[in-house]
């Protein structure tokens, strides 16, 4: 059955090439835009190296201190994280690391600006960076305040050309580090792990950060398994309530939570008052926007399909005369339309690979890497089918309503 539908669909597509072209053009461009958007979303939130254990990790990315007159929000500080994330039950590893800050170096008189991130040793165990040479620094390096650094590949190129960097020294912001490892660059969009230069936390110019409740740090908590995550969230929340406020006159409450990067993003998008279901809400909003974006192309396709009903009049008449039910006919036309959309989706997918390549090479987003992956491909198929249903149902209903006698005669209006 499906086979003969498909055969028919191909024949119809080849019959009027101009119309097929118009339909495919619209479908593929629509899906191109949506797929570029999903690929970028995936590049930011999907699991990709070095963040391979996203499914069983949580982070502390934001904190907020609330007082009667003022609100301070931003990255949590080292002291806050140090008091809350250490030794959480169910956690395999916990890492504290700073938000990347930009630093200036001079390389033969020319200024080089790089991002520098300070991390502990656990950072390298949680995140699976691909080392091109050397290796990470260890917990001991971090404890002793060794001036060692892991750099990414573009930084190696900027400082040392094509030569090996391990064992050589590099100056950044007036400090000198010995390079111990070189990693493959992480896209800028992966804000949690992105940096050019990674050095131990203890190499900071002063140790004032140890007392700060707010500012400059993030934590990553890796659980043994997914089932430990709810327990970790709860325990973290109770620990937060127990922290004494450093400045109770100005700030009385502390708000922070162990969450996923997407939840953190959703938290920033929504109002303070919305406390629960933010991530789900944001996801619904994004999907809603996508469907809205598809409305115009869908109406366009509906119009094209409706205006072409008469082309198929005799076929419909014959089928009806021989007893095909309306449901069968609707099914057939929807299948046809979905097939058309899948073909358009395939073209859109190919185009989006090209478009992403262009976006990546334009360097608007440093070290962007939009490898087409199976997740984006699945999104693409899903989007194409949704689009096909959206634009196929109305014309199909209309076609199936044709009266057999009129249809056989060639149809009036």
């Amino acid at each position: 059955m499906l086979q003969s539908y498909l055969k028919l669909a191909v024949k119809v597509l080849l019959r009027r090439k101009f119309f097929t072209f118009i339909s495919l053009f619209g479908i593929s461009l629509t899906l191109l835009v949506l797929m570029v958007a999903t690929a970028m979303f995936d590049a930011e939130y999907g699991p990709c190296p070095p963040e391979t254990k996203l499914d069983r990790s949580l982070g502390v990315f934001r904190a907020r201190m609330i007082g009667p007159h003022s609100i301070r929000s931003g990255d949590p500080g080292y002291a806050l994280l140090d008091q809350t994330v250490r030794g959480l039950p169910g956690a395999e590893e916990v890492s504290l690391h700073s938000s990347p800050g930009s630093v200036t170096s001079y390389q033969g008189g020319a200024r080089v600006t790089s991002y520098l991130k300070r991390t502990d040793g656990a950072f390298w165990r949680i995140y699976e960076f691909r080392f091109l040479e050397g290796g990470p620094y260890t917990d001991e390096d971090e404890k002793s305040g060794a001036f060692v650094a892991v750099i990414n590949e573009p930084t190696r190129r900027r400082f040392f050309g094509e030569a090996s960097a391990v064992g050589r020294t590099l100056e950044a912001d007036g400090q000198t580090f010995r390079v111990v490892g070189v990693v493959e660059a992480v896209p800028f969009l992966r804000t949690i792990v992105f940096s050019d230069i990674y050095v131990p936390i203890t190499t900071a110019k002063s140790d004032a950060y140890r007392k700060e409740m707010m500012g400059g740090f993030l934590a990553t908590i890796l659980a043994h398994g997914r089932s430990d995550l709810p327990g970790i969230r709860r325990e973290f929340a109770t620990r937060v309530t127990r922290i004494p406020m450093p400045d109770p006159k100005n700030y009385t409450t502390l708000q922070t939570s162990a969450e996923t990067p997407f939840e953190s993003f959703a938290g920033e998008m929504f109002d303070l008052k919305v406390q629960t279901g933010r991530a789900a809400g944001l996801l619904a909003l994004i999907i809603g926007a996508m469907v809205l974006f598809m409305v115009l192309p869908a109406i366009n396709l509906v119009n094209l399909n409706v205006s072409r009903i008469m082309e198929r009049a005799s076929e419909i008449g014959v089928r009806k005369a021989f007893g095909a039910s309306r449901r069968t006919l609707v099914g057939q036309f929807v299948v046809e339309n979905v097939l058309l959309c899948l073909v358009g989706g395939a073209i859109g997918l190919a185009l989006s690979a090209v478009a992403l390549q262009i976006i990546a090479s334009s360097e608007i987003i440093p070290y962007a890497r939009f490898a087409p992956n199976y997740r984006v491909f699945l999104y693409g198929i899903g989007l194409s089918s949704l689009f096909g249903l959206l634009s196929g149902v109305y014309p199909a209903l209309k076609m199936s309503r044709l009266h057999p006698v009129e249809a056989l005669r060639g149809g009036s209006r």
Partner: protein
Amino acid sequence: MIRHILKLVWNRKRANFLLVLEMAISFLVLFGVAALGIYCYDGYRRPLGFAWEDVWNVSVVAPGPEGEWGPDKVETVRQLAIAVRGIPEVEQVTTVSAAPFSNSHDISSYDRPNGGAPFEFGVIVAGDAFDKIMKLRMIDGRWFSAEDDGANYHPKVINQRLARELFGTASPIGKPLAIAADGRPEERIVGVLQDFRKNGELSAPANFVISRADPQSPSAHASENLILRLRPGSPKSAEARIVAALQATGKGWSFEIRPLSEMRALANKVRLAPLLSAGMVAVFLILMVGLGLTGVLWQNVTQRIKEIGLRRAKGATARDIQTQILGELVVLASAGIVLGGVIAIQFPLLALVGPISTGIVLASLAASVVLLYGLTLLCGAYPSRMASRITPAEALHYE
């Protein structure tokens, strides 16, 4: 004639409804793009109010906890400025709380001194040499200077936009921005700038206030950046010498030096990228609608051969037929424009778009009307010519 066309359109209302809907949504897309484009162009051609060429910014991070600055740190910042000043290529240097084109924004909101709704403005705190470094253009009053030392008020320089908003055509010089209260001295307006668009050419027009950094006790916030003007044609090597001088003076401090030209390019790129991608998506959508519309019209013409043939047989000229097809199209487009326009006008009415002025809304409505009619007529051109070529003989023996 017009009544005829209206009747023809009405007779096919079911099929035409979807076309009208499509045109209405296209109209909304065109309206959005036109509003965005006109808004940005309008902002771009307004003066920036300062010169960024040959100006460099050094962001300064002191060691230790932020927010608590003792006299030692204040002294260090003074020393840093002196050290930079000693480099021959440096013309002027001073402190500023946030660099032009930077991501750091301070927004304040004050109650009006003469009552009424509170007003909002962006603010930076700058040293006395800031006007010469940025080549600011005063249009009224004066820039603040040593003559304000020891005064019983805080001197403020505001931009023309804020001056108009607060005082209309009257001169704001000598008037208070905020009256003395809670032991704080009066904030007095001493000068009006043509403008100071800190966030660059593509940013929205906004109120702005420049506050004087107190030379006696500058705050930590006011000293977050050193801004300096180099003599024109300075060699690149000056930069490394500036940093060396800074690092030698401020042990344990961090510095990041960048030319404003670079910061401007980055800020504009960041603002332009979403605009360009939105524009590209809109062009795709419109192109698609255009092709789709052509297809639908073509198909309609082939379905109406009998009708058109009959008209030709009764003496209508090819021109009449073309007018009829295009006339129907214009009616449909007008319906779409009315429907889309009713929706589009809700955005400024409900103040969903923020700072877009009525003038821009009207201009973009006009532009999108012209564009939509242009688009539909372009799409109708070929199908209507095709219709006009139908001969009565061919049409009448159609069946």
